[in-house]
Each structure stands twice: as structure tokens, then as C-alpha cells.
């Protein structure tokens, strides 16, 4: 059936800011879908509040709205743009929920807009717990015994009927927010109360605990004629009990026979047919490890993280095909983009093994519980491909960039036997390392399996890796042994340290014996058909099949690896745009990356894609083969920057700013010399290695001081210290990982924080705009609200900033991008940080100014001059719009994480507010971040002494718009004295009713709690903030943020927003 000709203009809804459980995979899916729609001549209107995405680019859609994802906004947008259809299945749960609301309130029907991709009945059948269960019962698909409850009492009654433990799953939440396993009544009450609150409809599913069963997923596609296929199945190495997003996953399944495989496949097809899904769908199963009994855990009637993984694992572009199906095509009409010979109606066959490992944020939230549960905690993931499981696992481990490169990377050798067994019971991100230690000590597979429920097949694979460690330690390193170690992907330096050699010796031995990586193609069909897709993975001991290419100049673009706090999707935006720009300039482009969620690892972005770890050794193997004319590192975040030195050693020219100059910006002494030469002031400070040195420097400078390691992104390990005790604690934490570079201790200045991104061609610079942070210095720039154009600095200061930027860029011989952060105290401008590379703000500032910074920087890198490229050097004229970038956090997902903001970045994503007025932009930004006020018009204020004066004024303004204020005694008294009506409440440790009761009573809209500076973490503030976040209350921890919020609330009406098509800017 050809496509439905009535569909001419489609509104695609994106997934909004990146949060845990809803991340870059939706940029990948959305971007692919938009391109797929445009290919068909459809006019695409895009709505997504996330400015860091590639999908919100004017190259991707015809009309681009970076506006909050609320029902009111979608309604206004539909009235403005008159699309005939809405496609909601590519924007995750966020888009699906919006579509449901619009359908339920009748808006779509009234305005003659159809939902394509899926129907609201389908969404309801799949998402509503009760309807889902009924549907499954109807077609005889088993679900675990369960009941949807709307009250705690009901939950207790049911749980006690089916017996503990029980699993709790709130309806309509993403990433399993608020869910968990309860082993007894106490836990049940705690989790259930919370889950009921977080659910959009106040429903929680209580179900039989199937923890320990195998967790298997199927990705299925169906068209409107009813044709269905499975794209891929996946097996979680961690059995049921760990969210699939936090599990190590292998594709295809490894321990299922054809009987089990086909049984579940048939079930998945039955389900997608009964739900009448048109597009992609993910079905999750629990399979009893010792019988054929299975349960359907969940169905996602849309593309998901798993479908992004399945697309990358197989080469089958699920989102693209889903978009075509939404237009009415059937699977047998859609060409397979990989083989160009087969059609989308065939099932991919793998001739390799894929391993995915989640990237968990415990290096950021050191106080957080590492335990993995049914609530997802990972911020991102890595994938690797190899022709054996062991190798795929080893490659994935080192792709994580968490200082792990083998099963020895976490040392448990100091534990007693008893302690080790106890550790094996703990389900966390280090479990495979503990199993490895158990294997080293000869613990039986049976014992390990009994405790972990991990299948023995996987345990044996870990044992093979452990045995190789032993062999390398004990046997002479023969070429045969080396070959075997490389086959299972031991890195040279690990082999070297085990064999008592240097990495160079091992590498030399490899080359001497011709033990080098070969590359194989991901072709969807196990070589059955010839494919042209340049999508490769490495293996040892095989024949290379990468086609030699010559003619064009070759550039290697290094990606940014897994998404983590501090290095997010922005860098993928930069990598992709840089690749496209090089391509336009006639280069052959090669991307190396290992993140399955991103656009950059879509096989049609670059001329060649190598899905590989981003370590020097892995990159060198690619360089040996491809011999690129140059590499760009400035777009791939710290991951790529860290490879600079190695690339130079391999003889690959670094395109753009040279390595020495990147170093100069990071090296304190070199950098100080440059500043001095340019006459630019910076906060005084010093470099140290030990706590003693740090205390000395700090006392000379006077507290507070800023302490941080060099060469990090996202302010990792950065803290404000107010006394010697803090210094000791912070330096201790930093030095847990051996530091190659000194630690920096600087005077902490509390001024306005200003940020610029600029392009420099060696002589001239172009600054698209100056951004100002609403929060004062001390809060990481990634966690601050950023405003363009800067609001509160004078014209003169702007000129100084322009001047300093130019001087710094020139002195550092920047060719390409530079990002500088300043502090402005009065009229004094200090430089606090310089990064001669792309930054987090690049996508946002590109979009709001209309200046395509990345393509421009790319052209400069290959020799273009700003003047010749049609731009006037210097600070560009301010755009007609105000733009506010708002950080978005995922604190509710990470139990035990402190939510107070500081110099170390904690946000996972961002959204944008863009408008003709500052207040409206700010309002939109808050709205986009999910702060939708007022609701109950009750708030709590508890602030540190320094903030009391400001808090009074903020309180007064909230009171004026109808808020009832609760405050701790000290704050309340100050307020009352100033004539603001504040109700004093007891602190937590005092008797009820106290602050905690208020928060748990669910009538509070907002908590303003500014913690005192320093290492203090426990105590009142921490508990209040955690409880507020976990019960879904908005919490602001900086007084400036609170001021901005009231400012925006005073002046804006949600029903009268002006929506702006950013495709018209610039």
C-alpha cells in the first residue's frame, strides 16, 4: 500500500530535556524520523524543548519550535501551524503522554488532526496497567499476578495475598520512576506512597516478584496491513530485578534455545498484533530459567532506548521505518537501507555479538546508593561489537571511560571469603568484577549462580577472561598466547602489566607477529547479501573487509562516548555537524564512537562509522588502516581531547587548535603566563598535590576557595571549601584516583558569571553572543540558568569581554572553537576558565543567534577566514530574541544524591525558553523544565544567613501572587519582621507537625532551600531536599534561581505564549 496522500504536514513531538530514562536515543530516533518524513516530501513541524539536540536544527525539520512540552503549548502550536497529523511515537514517554492528553481532551478531534504512528486506543491498551492486563489475558499471554492499586491499603491487602516480595510499578512514569521491590510491609508502604504520588494517574501496579528470572526483550515492527517482524532480541545478563536500562545486555540472546526464542518471538508478534501497533514496539519478558514459563513484563508502543540499541546492534533503522509506516507504507515496500537489496520486511541476522553496558553516575554522586533496582539510574550507555562475547564485554568495559579496562579494575582481593560472598549478594554496577574475584578464588559456578542468578553461560565467559589473566601472569608471552588474549580483546597495557612488560613491548610484539585488528561490516544479514553500509567493528584473527578508499582527503572525527553528567548530547551535536561540514567541503569523513543512543553512530552520518572504544590503542588500529589526513578532537568533549597526544604520536595531524595550545589552557603555569602577557586578571590561586599544600595556599588566599583537578569536564571533583577540614575531605576524594596533573586551588569570587563561545581563525574572532548566568559564580555553568543576551552587564563590560576573548584566542593560537568563562564583579572582569574546544552551550547559542558555529569552526579549521566566510569579526549584533537555557536534573532517580548545587555539575539535561521578552523566555524555560506553577500555592523557605535579606523580598513577591509561605523559625522571624506573612514550622528533628510533614502532605509547590557552603551535607537541609525531590516537589537551592522564578511568574500567562519558529532566525 503506498503512502497516505492525505498526510502533508506532520507535527513531530520530541522527548524534551535529557533525564535519566529518556535520553539521547530520542534525538537519534527523532532525527532519523524527521529525515525519513522529509524524504517523502512531508512538511515537518518539530516541537522539542531540548536545544542540545540535532533534531531541533533547521536542517532537520522545516519548522522548529524549541518550546516547553506542555498541553497548552502543543495546542497553541497546532492552531498556529495547522499540521494535519501528529507523530508522537518517537519522543519517548513525554511525547506519548502529551498525545494522550490531547486526544483525551478532544482537542485533536476538534481540530481535525490525526495521530499517526499509533492510535490512542493502542497507547491506552499498552500503557494503562489494567487495560494491558485485560488485553494480555484475552490473547492468553501471561503476566505476573498483579493488581493496580490506587491506595496503600489496597496494596497491602494484595501483597499479603500473593506474598512478598512484590514489585511496584507506577503507571505513566518514565525510566520506572518511583518503582521498586518491596520485601516486607514497611518497604511496601514507603515505595507505594511515593509511587502513587509520581504516577500521572495515581496508579501503581503491585505484582508477583519474578526477580531472578531471565530478562529478555524483543523489538518488533508492524505495519497497517498486519505484517510483523522482529528486529532483534536481547538478553539481560542481570536477571529480572534490575531495570533493563541499568543491565548489561547482550544481543542476540545467548542462552535461549530455538524453542524459547521462537516461543517469545511468537508471543511478541501476537502482542503487537493485538495492540494494533503500527510502527515499532518493545516487549519485555521474564523467562523462568528452568521451565518454559514466561511473563510479559512491559510493552512500549513506541521507539525506546532499547530500539535505539537494537537499531545499532543490527543496522536496522527502526525509527526510519517506523516513520514510513506512519505514512502508510507496508514493510515490504520499504527498502532496507543497509543492503539496498532486501526490504524492511525481513529479520536481521547477526554474525557477531553485541554487549551494552550502562554508564552509571556514581562517580558524580558519591553519596548515592550504587544498588541497581527496577528504577533506572544510568545516564547513558556504551555498546560494543565483536565476534565473541568475551571480546565484546572487554571492549564495552573500556568504552565506559570510568577508569576500568578489565575485570581487575575494581580490586576485591582484600576481602575475606565471607565479605566477598556478602558483596556478591549486592546488586550494583560492580557485580561482574566481584564475580571475577570469586572465580579467581575458585568459587564454583553453582555458588555464584545461586547468589546472583546470572546464567552460568555468562559466568563461564567471565571465567575465560579470568583464566586469561592467570595465563598472562604465569606463562611466557608467546605469539599464540598474545593472539588468544587479543581475540578476547585484552588491551595491550593490561597484557603488559600482567606479563611484566611495557605496553610498547606488547604492541611491538603484536605488530611483529601480525596480530592486528581487522574490521567487519554490520550488514543486517550475516553476509547473505552484499551490503555497502560502511558500519564496522573490529575483531582479531579475521580477515579485514574495510574497503580501501582514496581520492578525497580523510578526516577522523572522534566522538564523545557515553552520555554522562558533564558530557552530554551537546557534543554529539557538535560531532555530527562537524562531520557534515567536512563532508560538504569534500572530505571523506570517519566517525569513531561507541554510544548506541546517538545520531553520530547512525550509519549514514559519516562516510564510515567505526563502532569502537575511544582509547588510544583502539583508535590506533583504525588509524593504521585508514591513514587519515587529520583528526578533529575539539568537538568530541573531553573524550576526544584526551586522545590528542596519542593521535599526534601516531602521526595524525590534529586539525584546528594544536595540542600544545590545548595544554596551555589547562596548565596553570603556562596559562598564567599567557594571562599576564595579555593583561587579563584571574582569581589568584595556586597548584598543589597534597592536602597540606592546599591548606597552605588556601590560607594565603583566604577562604572560601575553589578546589578542582585539572583536565576535567563538568566540574568533576570541583568544590568550594570554607575551611581546612573541607580541604582535607576534598583533596582526599580527588586523590582517590591517581592524578597525572596538579590540583588547582583558587580564590572564590562571588560575582556574575559570564560565558562566551567564539570561533577563531588565528587572527579574527567571532562571538555569536554573550551569555549570563542567573546564579552567581560557584554554581557550575552547566547547572546555571544561562541567559542570552547578557542582561545585567554594561556595554563597556561587553567590550572588555570581547577584547579578552580575542586576546586569549589569539594567544592560544585557537583555530576553531573556544569557550571562556568570566566572572564580573562590578566593572572588573576576571577569567576563570578557558576551554579551546566546543562546549555545552554551542548548540543553544547557534540556534538562538542563527549563527551555525560548528560548520563555521569546521571551515576555519580547514583554512577558511571569518571575513571570507561572510561574517564580521567581533561580537555579533544581538538577536531579536531572549533565550534562557535551563538545567534539568534527574535527582529523583538517584537515591541518596545531594541535590544542592555547587561547582560540580549535576544536571543531566537542559531545555530552552525563547521569547520576545526576557520574562516570557524565563517562564518558558521553567515550564520546559517541568516547574509548572502555581498549583497549591504553598511554599517553604529555609535559607542560609547570607540569603535572608533576599529571601524576604522573594517571599514578599510570592505572597503577592497568592502564596502561603512556610519557613523555619529563623527565616520566618526575619520575614515577619519585614512584614511578610510567614508561618513558622518546626525543623525536622523537632516535634510534628514539622517541615517533613508538610512536604509529605503533598500540598507544597516549591521549596527554596539554600544550603550553607562547605562540606556539610547531612542534617536538616539534605534530608529536606531529598524528601522534597523524591516526593516530586520542586526544589531550588540557589537564591538567584528563586528570584528568577518569581520574576517569570509575575509577568506571564501560560495561555498567551508566543511560539517562535527558530528556523526563521539568522
Amino acid at each position, binding site marked *: 500500500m503506498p503512502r497516505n496522500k492525505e498526510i502533508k504536514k506532520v507535527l513531530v513531538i520530541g522527548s524534551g530535556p535529557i533525564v535519566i530514562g529518556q535520553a539521547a536515543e530520542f534525538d537519534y530516533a527523532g532525527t532519523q524520523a524527521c529525515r525519513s518524513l522529509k524524504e517523502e516530501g512531508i512538511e515537518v513541524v518539530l516541537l522539542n524543548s531540548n536545544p542540545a539536540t540535532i533534531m531541533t536544527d533547521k536542517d532537520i525539520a522545516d519548522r522548529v519550535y524549541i518550546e516547553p512540552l506542555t498541553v497548552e503549548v502543543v495546542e497553541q502550536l497546532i492552531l498556529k501551524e495547522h499540521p494535519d497529523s501528529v507523530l508522537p511515537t518517537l519522543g519517548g514517554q513525554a511525547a506519548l503522554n502529551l498525545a494522550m492528553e490531547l486526544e483525551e481532551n478532544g482537542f485533536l478531534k476538534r481540530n481535525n488532526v490525526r495521530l499517526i504512528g499509533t492510535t490512542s486506543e493502542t497507547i491506552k491498551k499498552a500503557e494503562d496497567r489494567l487495560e494491558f492486563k485485560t488485553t494480555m489475558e484475552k490473547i492468553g499471554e501471561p503476566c505476573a499476578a498483579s493488581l493496580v492499586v490506587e491506595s496503600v491499603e489496597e496494596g497491602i491487602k494484595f501483597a499479603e495475598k500473593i506474598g512478598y516480595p512484590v514489585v511496584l510499578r507506577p503507571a505513566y512514569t518514565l525510566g520506572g520512576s518511583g518503582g521498586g521491590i518491596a520485601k516486607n510491609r514497611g518497604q511496601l508502604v514507603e515505595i507505594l506512597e511515593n509511587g502513587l504520588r509520581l504516577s500521572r494517574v495515581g496508579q501503581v501496579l503491585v505484582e508477583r516478584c519474578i526477580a531472578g528470572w531471565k530478562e529478555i526483550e524483543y523489538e518488533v515492527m508492524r505495519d497497517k496491513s498486519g505484517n510483523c517482524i522482529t528486529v532483534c532480541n536481547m538478553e539481560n545478563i542481570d536477571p529480572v530485578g534490575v531495570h533493563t536500562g541499568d543491565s548489561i545486555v547482550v544481543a542476540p540472546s545467548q542462552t535461549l534455545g530455538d524453542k524459547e526464542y521462537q516461543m517469545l518471538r511468537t508471543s511478541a508478534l501476537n502482542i503487537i498484533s493485538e495492540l494494533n501497533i503500527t510502527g515499532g514496539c518493545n516487549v519485555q519478558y521474564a523467562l523462568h530459567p528452568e521451565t518454559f514459563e514466561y511473563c510479559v513484563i512491559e510493552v512500549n508502543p513506541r521507539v525506546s532506548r532499547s530500539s535505539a540499541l537494537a537499531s545499532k546492534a543490527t543496522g536496522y533503522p527502526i525509527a526510519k521505518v517506523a516513520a514510513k509506516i506512519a505514512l502508510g507504507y507496508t514493510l515490504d515496500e520499504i527498502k532496507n537501507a543497509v543492503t539496498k537489496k532486501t526490504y524492511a520486511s*525481513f529479520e*536481521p541476522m547477526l*554474525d557477531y555479538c553485541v554487549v551494552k553496558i550502562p554508564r552509571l553516575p556514581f562517580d558524580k554522586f558519591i553519596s548515592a546508593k550504587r544498588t541497581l533496582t527496577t528504577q533506572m539510574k544510568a545516564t547513558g550507555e556504551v555498546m560494543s561489537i565483536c565476534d565473541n562475547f568475551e571480546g565484546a564485554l572487554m571492549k564495552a568495559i573500556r568504552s565506559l571511560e570510568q577508569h576500568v579496562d578489565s575485570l581487575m579494575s575494581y580490586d576485591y582481593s582484600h576481602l575475606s571469603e565471607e565479605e566477598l560472598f556478602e558483596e556478591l549478594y549486592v546488586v550494583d554496577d560492580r557485580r561482574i568484577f566481584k564475580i571475577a574475584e570469586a572465580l579467581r578464588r575458585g568459587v564454583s559456578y553453582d555458588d555464584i549462580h545461586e547468589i546472583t542468578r546470572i546464567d552460568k*553461560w555468562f559466568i563461564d565467559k567471565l571465567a575465560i577472561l579470568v583464566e586469561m589473566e592467570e595465563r598472562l601472569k604465569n606463562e611466557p608471552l608467546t605469539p599464540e598466547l598474545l593472539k588468544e588474549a587479543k581475540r578476547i580483546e585484552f588491551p595491550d597495557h593490561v597484557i603488559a602489566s600482567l606479563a611484566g612488560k611495557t605496553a610498547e613491548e606488547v604492541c611491538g610484539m603484536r605488530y611483529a607477529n601480525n596480530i592486528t585488528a581487522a574490521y567487519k561490516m554490520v550488514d543486517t544479514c550475516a553476509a547473505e547479501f552484499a551490503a555497502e553500509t560502511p558500519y564496522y567493528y573490529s575483531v582479531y584473527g579475521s580477515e579485514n573487509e574495510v574497503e580501501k578508499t582514496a581520492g578525497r582527503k580523510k578526516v577522523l572525527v572522534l566522538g564523545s562516548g557515553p552520555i554522562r553528567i558533564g558530557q552530554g548530547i551537546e557534543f554529539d551535536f557538535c560531532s555530527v555537524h562537524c562531520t557534515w561540514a567536512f563532508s560538504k567541503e569534500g572530505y571523506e569523513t570517519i566517525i569513531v564512537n561507541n554510544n548506541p543512543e546517538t545520531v553520530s553512530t547512525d550509519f549514514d552520518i559519516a562516510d564510515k562509522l567505526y563502532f569502537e572504544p575511544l582509547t588510544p590503542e583502539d583508535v590506533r588500529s583504525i588509524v593504521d588502516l585508514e591513514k587519515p589526513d587529520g583528526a578533529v578532537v575539539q568537538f568530541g568533549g573531553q573524550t576526544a581531547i584526551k586522545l590528542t597526544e596519542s593521535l599526534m604520536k601516531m602521526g595524525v595531524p590534529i586539525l584546528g587548535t594544536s595540542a600544545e595550545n590545548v595544554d596551555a589552557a589547562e596548565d596553570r603555569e603556562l596559562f598564567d603566563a599567557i594571562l599576564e602577557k595579555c593583561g587579563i586578571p584571574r582569581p589568584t590561586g595556586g597548584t598543589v598535590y597534597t592536602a597540606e599544600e592546599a591548606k597552605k595556599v588556601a590560607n594565603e588566599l583566604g577562604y572560601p576557595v575553589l578546589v578542582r583537578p585539572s583536565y576535567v569536564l563538568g566540574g568533576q571533583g570541583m568544590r568550594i571549601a570554607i575551611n581546612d577540614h573541607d580541604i582535607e575531605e576534598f583533596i582526599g576524594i580527588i586523590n582517590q584516583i591517581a592524578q597525572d596533573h596538579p590540583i588547582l586551588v583558587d580564590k572564590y569570587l562571588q560575582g556574575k558569571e559570564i560565558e562566551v563561545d567564539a570561533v577563531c581563525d588565528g587572527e579574527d574572532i567571532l562571538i555569536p553572543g554573550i551569555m549570563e548566568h542567573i546564579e552567581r559564580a560557584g554554581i557550575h555553568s552547566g547547572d546555571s540558568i544561562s541567559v542570552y543576551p547578557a542582561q545585567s552587564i554594561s556595554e563597556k563590560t561587553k567590550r572588555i569581554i570581547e577584547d579578552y576573548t580575542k586576546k586569549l584566542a589569539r594567544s592560544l593560537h585557537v583555530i576553531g572553537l573556544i569557550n571562556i568563562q568570566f566572572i564580573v564583579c562590578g566593572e572588573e572582569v576576571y577569567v576563570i576558565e578557558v576551554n579551546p574546544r566546543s562546549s555545552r552551550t554551542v548548540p543553544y547559542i547557534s540556534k538562538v543567534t542563527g549563527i551555525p558555529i560548528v560548520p563555521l569552526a569546521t571551515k576555519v579549521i580547514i583554512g577558511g577566514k571569518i571575513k571570507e566566510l561572510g561574517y564580521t569579526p567581533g561580537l555579533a549584533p544581538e538577536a531579536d530574541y531572549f533565550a534562557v537555557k535551563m538545567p534539568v536534573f534527574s535527582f529523583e532517580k538517584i537515591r541518596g544524591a545531594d541535590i544542592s548545587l555547587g561547582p560540580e555539575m549535576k544536571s543531566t539535561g537542559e531545555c530552552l525558553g525563547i521569547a520576545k521578552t526576557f520574562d516570557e523566555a524565563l517562564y518558558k524555560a521553567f515550564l520546559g523544565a517541568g516547574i509548572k506553577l502555581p498549583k497549591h500555592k504553598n511554599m517553604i523557605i529555609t535559607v542560609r544567613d547570607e540569603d535572608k535579606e533576599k529571601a524576604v523580598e522573594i517571599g514578599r513577591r510570592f505572597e503577592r501572587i497568592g502564596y502561603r509561605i512556610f519557613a523555619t523559625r529563623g527565616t520566618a522571624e526575619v520575614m515577619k519582621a519585614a512584614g511578610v506573612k510567614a508561618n513558622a514550622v518546626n525543623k525536622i528533628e523537632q516535634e510534628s507537625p514539622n517541615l517533613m510533614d508538610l512536604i509529605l502532605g503533598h500540598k507544597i509547590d516549591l521549596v527554596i532551600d539554600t544550603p550553607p557552603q562547605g562540606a556539610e551535607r547531612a542534617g536538616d537541609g539534605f534530608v529536606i531536599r531529598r524528601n522534597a525531590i523524591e516526593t516530586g516537589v520542586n526544589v531550588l537551592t540557589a537564591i538567584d534561581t528563586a528570584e528568577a522564578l518569581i520574576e517569570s511568574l509575575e509577568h506571564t500567562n501560560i495561555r498567551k505564549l508566543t511560539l517562535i519558529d527558530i528556523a526563521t532566525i539568522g
Partner: protein
Amino acid sequence: MMKAFLILEDGTVFTGTSIGSKKEMISEIVFNTSMTGYLEVLTDPSYAGQAVVMTYPLIGNYGITPDMESRRAWPKGYIVRELSRIPSNFRCEGTIQDFLEKQDIPGIAGIDTRALTKILREKGTMNSMITVDEDFDLKEILPKLKAYVVGDVVAETTCKESYTIKGGGPKVALMDFGAKDNIAKSLNQRGCEVTVYPAATPAEEVIASAPDGIMLSNGPGDPKDCTAIIEEIRKLYETEIPIFAICLGHQLMALANGAKTYKLKYGHRGGNHPVKDLSNGRVYISSQNHGYAVDASTLDASIAKEAFVNVNDGTNEGFSYVGKNIFTVQFHPEACPGPKDSGYLFDRFMDMMKGAR
């Protein structure tokens, strides 16, 4: 670990590790892309006379389960990237290593099966040898490889005597040309009483037993070689008994009606082939294992209408015989291994038998 060598007719030699029997073998070599179901592949009689390459690199993960599709393993050789060191499955009864030894099948592991598959894809199905003799002489071997022919493998694989699987429903005569057990099982599960006949059984004997339907099974080898069987099938065609045929059975029925068959370059072997039902446009994912196909243009449209085609390459996948209760498919609705999507065809056959009664 003993070295083993895989030698192809074109002179390519792969060196790997010996698995299974150490005996030398010469046979045709084909590849199968299924990711699960290695045991069903090994025990599918259609592989008689052939060595099978598994394109999925990790084989033996769940060991040997009670899922054999016939009484023994049939391939002459077995080629894998890696055999799992231990199997893990609740139904596991043994390792694939032991199974290959017991079944006396020589094999080779540790070779680049993808490179091998690409050769077979580019140059087409050819003959091969597996040997553990390190001193092999290519000059001597290659002519032997070229001379190898698969031969009369149907006679080798079919049952020696007829037997009956009890059931209370329609009586089906299953002509065993090298049948997979799940064909009989699929009928029996639907209530049929299935009598399995050796391939060479005269049509008269089958007709005399007055079956409600006749099932023509899958099987190995070149369909054109089965001249005697084709004659018998022609006689079955002439009756009014409903007939359902799979794979080789489908080809033989076409040949019995004057069609021509040809050898595919490298065949279809795997569980992911899309076939389109031309009566309603629906596409099903099918299990396939065939090296030959019917040239649909050689079968008169007044005799049979093309019922199924392969979505990938447009080759014929089934016929519906005009004015007859006969339909035939090239693929395997009995699955095992592979998807069960086309299992509904057995229901269609049941309906046909009911309607004819």
C-alpha cells in the same frame, strides 16, 4: 587441540581446530544464518550430502536439547566460528562437542566464518573438504572436490518402513523424502493420524489406504534426480485427495506438472526470509532451507497459480493448483528452527481435508 583444514573447490584453505569426528569428508558446502536452532539444523535431513557453515559465531550455548528433527544428524561436515565451552540450559542433555563425535560428523571451528560465507555468496555453492591431515595435497584434492555430486540422498534419509502416529482426526499420508519430525508433529497436534511412507512407496499403495490428505515432505538433493518419485506424485496429483507439500515436495509436485527447477546461486538457509502471500499481500517471515527453486514461468498458469513469492529476490515460494485441493510451499511452515508465522498453513490443510470429505 588438533588442527583441521577446510578446503574449498576454488582452492581456498581455512585452518582451524578440529571438532567432532576426525574423519575426512568431501561434500557440498552451504551456509545457514539462523542464530538459534543449531540442533534442528544438524538433524534436518535436507542437509544430507552437505557441510553446513553456521554464520552465527557462537554455537552450542544451550547444548543438546530434546529437539532433534530426525533420528540422527545429517550434514557431512560442520563449520563454526566458536563452540561454547559449556552449555547452559535447563533442558540440556549433553554438549555439542560430544554430539558431533557420537554422530561421527567431522567439523572445524575457529575459522573466519564470515569470510567463508562471503566466498560462498560471491562464487555460489561449491564443494569442500574437511581434513585433519596437515600434509594434504591441493593438486590431488581439488579434482576430487570438483567431481563430488550429492547423489541420491532421499533414499538415504527416508524411513525404511512405513509407520503410523495415532490420532483421532483426518488420516494423512506423509511422504517422507527426508522429512523433519515437526511436519508429522504439526499434523498430529491438530488431531491427524499420520502414516509416514518411505519415499519410494508406489502411489497406488498410498491411494489404496484412502487417506484424507497427503503431505509431501521436505528433503535433500536435486529435485530433478527424483525421477521415479515424480512419476508417483503425478499419480497422486490425478486423484482428488487434498495435498500439501513443503520444500522438496513442492518442487517435485511442480516437476510432476511439467515445470522446471534450477539451482540457486547459494540457496536460502535461515529463519528470516520474508515470503508474500499473493492472495492477500501479507508478508510472513519464514524458515527456509533450499538450494533449488521452481522457475514459476515454466508452470502453466492454467495448472497452478503462484501463491507465494520471496520478497527479497522474487523467487517462487509456493503454488496453488488450479481446480485441485493442492497447495505447495517452498519454505517451512513447520519451523524448527525458525519462526512459526506460517504455521497457519497446516490449518489451511486441515480445512481443505474437512471440505473434501
